[in-house]
């Protein structure tokens, strides 16, 4: 995902620049193994586990994606892919996760 000139500026600036994105595996992990949630007990207000677990996984997945977004925003002004990101280039600070 290292995009050309940016990666060249600093070796460590490569894939680790995007370390928060590894968390995006979590939403997949939550639902990828049906044997884990294919059960009725424990129920929640009468709703079998199979259903309330997956509904809860939607919320967890949203929290993870939002968290990754916020972490990246903190780290620097984000990859320059929008008009508002066209400021001065972000400082090439490896691990500048404030």
């Amino acid at each position, binding site marked *: 995902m290292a995009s050309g000139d940016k990666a060249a500026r600093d070796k460590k600036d490569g894939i680790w620049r995007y370390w928060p994105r590894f968390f995006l595996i979590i939403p997949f992990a939550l639902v990828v193994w049906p044997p884990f949630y294919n059960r009725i007990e424990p129920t929640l207000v009468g*709703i079998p586990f199979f*259903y309330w677990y997956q509904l809860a996984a939607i919320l967890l997945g949203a929290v993870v994606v939002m968290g990754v977004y916020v972490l990246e925003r903190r780290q620097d002004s984000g990859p320059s892919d929008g008009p508002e990101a066209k400021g001065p280039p972000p400082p090439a600070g490896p691990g500048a996760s404030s």
Partner: protein
Amino acid sequence: MNLNITATIVFVGLFLFVTWVGFVAAHWRKADLNQLHEWGLGGRRFGTVVTWFLLGGDLYTAYTFIAVPALVYGVGAMGFFAVPYTIMIYPILFLVFPRLWAIAKKHGHVTAADYIRTRFNSRLLALAVALTGLLATMPYIALQLVGMEVVIGALGFPTEGFIGHIPLIIAFIVLAAFTYTSGLRAPALIAVVKDMLIFITIFAAIIIIPAKLGGYGAIFDAVPKAKLTLTPPVGQTLGGYSAYITLALGSACALFLYPHSMTGILSASSGRVIRRNAAALSAYSFVLGLIALLGYMAIAAGVDKNPLHAEGFARYGANFAVPALFLDMFPSWFTGVAFAAVAIGALVPAAIMSIACANLFTRNLYKEFWRRNCSDAEEARVAKIVSLVVKVGAVLFILAIPQSYAIQLQLLGGIWIIQLLPPILFGLFTRGFNANALLLGWATGTAVGTYMAATRGFVSSIYPLEFWGITIPGYAALYSVVLNVVVAAVLSPVFDRLWPSAGALDQTSNRR
């Protein structure tokens, strides 16, 4: 069925309001609508909130709202695959599509085929991408009509003969007219109304209906035990498990490759808007999960035993479950609101899909192969006309051909569209792939996927793959795209050596 007067008045009133919104949209964020990117992408100026409504209205279609609970009503737990599916789409949206957006913005791309054309410098691969997009989207538009037809029928309109089709034809004339004048601005603005109605309907449904049926416990107790969970593996087959998860994963990979999703994404004003929406759109997934549960509520309410609904079930099958549930549970005026939500929910994606088809046809067939030097105004004019043709085609399709064909074609559409994953994904993130190898991979994947569906008589996309004596039933789209990737990966180095110049890639276009 008798015409439900109160519900019909509310329904028609809301429909007229939305029509007015559709025409007013032409003046919203005023710009020159004779430019394709203004008409067909809203000028790429939609911020986080508008994009949220637009993509929400685009991806969670009327057909979804009818078909997902119908599937849960019919087959139980397997129908709930829509939930893991919508969980998995957002990390994909977050990782892949801001990059595509940035490249598209820089080069003025309006479609995925535009991107492929520049990236691989291959007219043939771009043509394959454009044709796949068109073929996969057309039946999808037709299916939106199915969703609309079910609620119009449920209102009690006569459904026999030509008279029965008049409401649908009027709705589509209205849709065609405001899409023509306002472009993508119309569905964007209407989506706001549609989503409000959907949210109101669903929150009313999950409070009122369980209260009437004696709580969620009673609802799930009324459902046969076998339906409540997936069939666990028995003997030499993986049962429902592999089907469930491959359906979810394959559908998630395919979703954003559809031209209408692409149109929604490219109309955002920045990559950041897309990333924010990757989190915020989960609200719709949650609502979809609740909507899926309406299928069980319909079972618990015993809608199929009500003689009033016999005709509806005979005509529309399980798709009638949710409309019947609303008719039984809501007062008439609110049934009108709920049905209007579904019908307007059909207009929004149908508009975006026809715009996406128009963009594809104009950019990647008309301009590429007939009129290389056509002006911007001509380009926009052709796109507007094509958007009309596409809708007329969808209406004729529904009127002339049995509904089951539209459903089968849409099922095939999912298998076809996922074959665009390798060109787009590898185009964005790697350099080693050869355009001709990707083209052969696409051809192989499409052929094998279609064959897999054919072995199931085009009624199911679950293919029982035999692997070392174990049967792994899974989504044909996912199996065939794996083959597609293998072919592309194996042939790329071979082709690069044999014809070093062919399929040379434009190095600039996979950078930001």
